């Protein structure tokens, strides 16, 4: 490993330890690692933007102005973002933002009916009685009830009011409402538990990638971090 890489590996191990130190207490070393990260990320974001501007606008414009003249318009729209600092022309940026809002909303609107709604309805329609296999029958009943219950839970404006004696309609509504709540709780519990495995996996990955090859860097960084945390705790 060339000494530039060794220096880099040391810096990487130190930065990782100091970012972890935030969970113990916000301290000056975390603040350094954080600002180093935010500055690098800001520069990285601009670098990516320059790269895509070059590929999508400057190269096509340079190559063939006749057919690609229209790319000048988004460049101008992009420049209007700078006008937000002016009192008179702050509104010009709305044309650029409008295009992005519209395209984003359109992308969502195009796929929502099929992917979010119809596919889910089709998936919810399952055979409710298979004489040979009681386990699937029970599973299917449970899946249908949880789905219908969840739909009932999310109803905002159309719900039977419970004035005085609760009507049968209200009882059914309440029943499905509760099935929906309990059904979602199962989903939330399962998903929470399932992420633990991946998050521990990432920490092991970090240990292998940054600590194992440079143990001394990590140890020194930890010692400095402990001092910084102790200092931060005493001050508060």
């Amino acid at each position, binding site marked *: 490993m060339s000494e530039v890489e060794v220096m880099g590996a040391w810096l990487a191990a130190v930065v990782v330890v100091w*970012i972890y130190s*935030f969970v113990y207490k*916000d301290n000056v070393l*975390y*603040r350094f690692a*954080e600002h180093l*990260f*935010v500055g*690098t*990320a*800001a520069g*990285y*974001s601009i670098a990516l933007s320059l790269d895509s501007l070059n590929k999508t606008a400057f190269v096509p414009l340079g190559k063939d102005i006749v057919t690609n003249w229209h790319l000048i318009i988004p460049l101008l729209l992009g420049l209007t*973002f700078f006008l*937000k600092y002016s009192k008179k022309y*702050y509104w010009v*940026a709305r044309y*650029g*933002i409008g*295009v*992005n*809002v519209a*395209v*984003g*909303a359109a*992308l*969502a*609107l*195009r*796929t*929502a*009916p*099929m992917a979010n*709604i*119809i596919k*889910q*309805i*089709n998936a*919810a*329609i*399952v*055979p*409710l009685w298979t004489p040979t296999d009681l386990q699937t029958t029970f599973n299917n009943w449970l899946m*249908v009830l949880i*789905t*219908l219950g969840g*739909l*009932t839970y*999310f*109803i*905002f*404006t*159309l*719900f039977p009011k419970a004035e005085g004696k609760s009507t049968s309609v209200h009882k059914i509504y309440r029943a499905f409402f509760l099935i929906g709540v309990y059904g*979602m709780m199962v*989903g*939330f*519990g399962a*998903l*929470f538990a399932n992420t633990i495995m991946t998050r521990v996996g990432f920490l092991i990955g970090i240990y292998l990638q940054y600590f194992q090859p440079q143990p001394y860097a990590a140890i020194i960084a930890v010692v400095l971090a402990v001092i910084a945390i102790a200092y931060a705790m005493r001050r508060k």
Partner: protein
Amino acid sequence: MDIIYSKAGVVPFALLVFLMLAGYYFMRKAKGGKPIPVRKIAAFDAIEEGVARSVEMGRPVHFTLGYGPLSTSMAPQYLAGLGVLNHVARLCGKYGANLVSTLGVPELIAAEEEVIRDAYYSAGKPELYNVTYNVRYLTDQQFAYASAVQATIQRENAGTNIMVGPFWAESLIFVEAGAASGAFQVAGTARETQIPFFVLAADYSFIGEEIFAAGAMASGDNVTLASIRGQDIGKLLSWVLIVVGLVLLPLGIKLATYLVM
């Protein structure tokens, strides 16, 4: 003349048009002045409670709506978050609370600055508006944004932490950073994989489409609020279609094949 046919299915398009017409119908009816009752969403009322509490403790309110490009299919969730920011800003003006709004969506910097400026000026508290204090853009890179927001919540000693918009893995980072500094937290997202962390660790949470209902309620305008009933019509329709599908299935008719025509 080539015949007109639907490439992505006539039924999905019909469903889209039907729901939009339903929403439009109720918006027109509400224009006549008859407001539509909306079931109580605890998290929405908790926002006002949070702002008031922050002012008593002399601590600022923190708000964030996430990071990322606006021109993706997440745009609706950013707009719902912006709607809630509008509400939070007006409440901060009313109660005289300091508002710190962090974001990672470059296209919305100007909109956030103006919305907050409007709120403080119309509440007669222009002295509370200071653009570099109120709105902080922290890069559109996910974890640089997360490292800066978790620090901001603790360094500004936020009394209330409100997060509505699309969130990815950084959702739990913010909620725990807020909990560590004793903040009162209201959080909501429609990204399924992150909802459990908000439900578990925040004091109040919007689940999935409740952030859209919150956005509409935040507008405080009856016509906008009435559009939520369009979402309910969708749910009732789904109810009916599922039940019909279940009934037809044993008769050998698969509703699914018709729905994707």
